[in-house]
């Protein structure tokens, strides 16, 4: 395993000027497109990209438009990881060197429908970086609840009303589930902390075998937020502790950011139309869940 210190850092000053995700049709201010664009700039030209059905594929392959400026392909919804495994193996069989295979899949495509293929990919330790951009619902088909939609979110399949506060379940512990495979490298990130995200993609790029990044990526259309606040809201989520920044490496968890005090949860929630119906009691449930999670993480990951 490469130590971070040995890998030259990639930042806004020294990254390639080339754009590999350009002219796409994502909504203005789409956080998912920031995640895809930045990762591809770190990975460079010699990259094979596989994307299952979801917004990032829908906005990039509108025939004859090809917003990916390097090799990219759409896969079946549940099969992105298998397709990527095949690409990585095929390129290796052809004797190709110095290339990376990457998947960009949504939260639905990862935590729900694509999970079996992803689990197999990690089990075989195929040389693929799998990036899940998490916008907390099935956005491309009109905002349905996924396994990563948090408690209290209003979606079209979990409407909020007199009797229910929207989504009733909490987010799956996706990062821990991936780590439980004993994967070589896994991390969580947020587009609200872009340099941290670049560092993690860079680390994964230099990891041989399967690696995984779960990146929090805002969706102004599905969240009901102004387009210009996409990066800010993804930072707020981390600052209030609902999203955490961590890594799993050499069998150990590491909490990258452990603030003394959290920013306000209600301030984060009230900026978004998907949460504006929440009662004080619902916010209490969300806060309690956060605190439980953090006491677990602090006990075991520090």
């Amino acid at each position, binding site marked *: 395993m490469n130590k971070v210190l040995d890998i030259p850092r990639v930042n*806004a000053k020294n990254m390639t*000027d080339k754009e590999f995700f350009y*002219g796409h049709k994502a909504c203005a201010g789409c956080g998912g497109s*920031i995640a895809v664009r930045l990762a591809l700039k770190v990975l460079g030209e010699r990259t094979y990209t596989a994307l299952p059905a979801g917004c990032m594929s829908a906005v990039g392959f509108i025939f*004859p438009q090809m917003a990916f400026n390097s090799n990219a392909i759409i896969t079946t919804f549940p099969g992105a990881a298998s397709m990527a495994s095949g690409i990585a193996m095929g390129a290796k069989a052809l004797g190709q060197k110095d290339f990376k295979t990457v998947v960009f899949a949504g939260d639905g495509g990862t935590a729900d429908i694509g999970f079996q293929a992803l689990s197999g990919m990690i089990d075989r330790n195929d040389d693929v970086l799998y990036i899940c951009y998490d916008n907390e619902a099935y956005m491309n088909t009109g905002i349905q609840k996924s396994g990563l939609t948090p408690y209290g979110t209003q979606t079209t399949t979990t409407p909020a009303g007199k009797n229910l506060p929207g989504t009733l379940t909490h987010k799956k512990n996706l990062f821990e589930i991936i780590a439980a495979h004993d994967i070589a490298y896994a991390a969580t990130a947020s587009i609200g902390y872009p340099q941290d995200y670049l560092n993690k993609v860079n680390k994964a790029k230099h990891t041989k075998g399967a690696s995984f990044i779960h990146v929090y990526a805002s969706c102004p259309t599905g969240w009901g937020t102004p*387009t210009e606040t996409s*990066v800010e809201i993804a930072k707020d989520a981390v600052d209030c502790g609902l999203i955490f920044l961590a890594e799993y490496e050499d069998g150990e968890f590491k909490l990258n950011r452990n603030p003394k005090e959290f920013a306000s949860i209600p301030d984060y929630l009230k900026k978004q139309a998907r949460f504006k119906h929440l009662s004080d009691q619902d916010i209490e449930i969300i806060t309690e869940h956060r605190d439980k999670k953090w006491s677990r993480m602090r006990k075991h990951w520090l």
Partner: protein
Amino acid sequence: MNRPKNKEYKFPTHIDDYPTGPQYKAGFLPETNAGWRKVRPVVDHEACVFCLRCYLVCPDGTIFKEDGKIKIDLDYCKGCGVCAHECPKDAISMVKE
């Protein structure tokens, strides 16, 4: 070329001209996104300190560096305003088209 440019798409006239799959050439852009925009970013180069925050966070990658200054490809900028909102020096303002 660092960023693809708008190219004309010639509609097939014969069955042989049709591609065999739903893929096309990498970076082929038959249209621009400029029509989506209601407001346009304008950079005050005096105030800009070239920190590149806007370049980093642009969802469309339309901000680029040229001669030590930031420039914007208005063919593909959608006017989301993330650059102006994130600029620590308030050097970018969004003006009505």
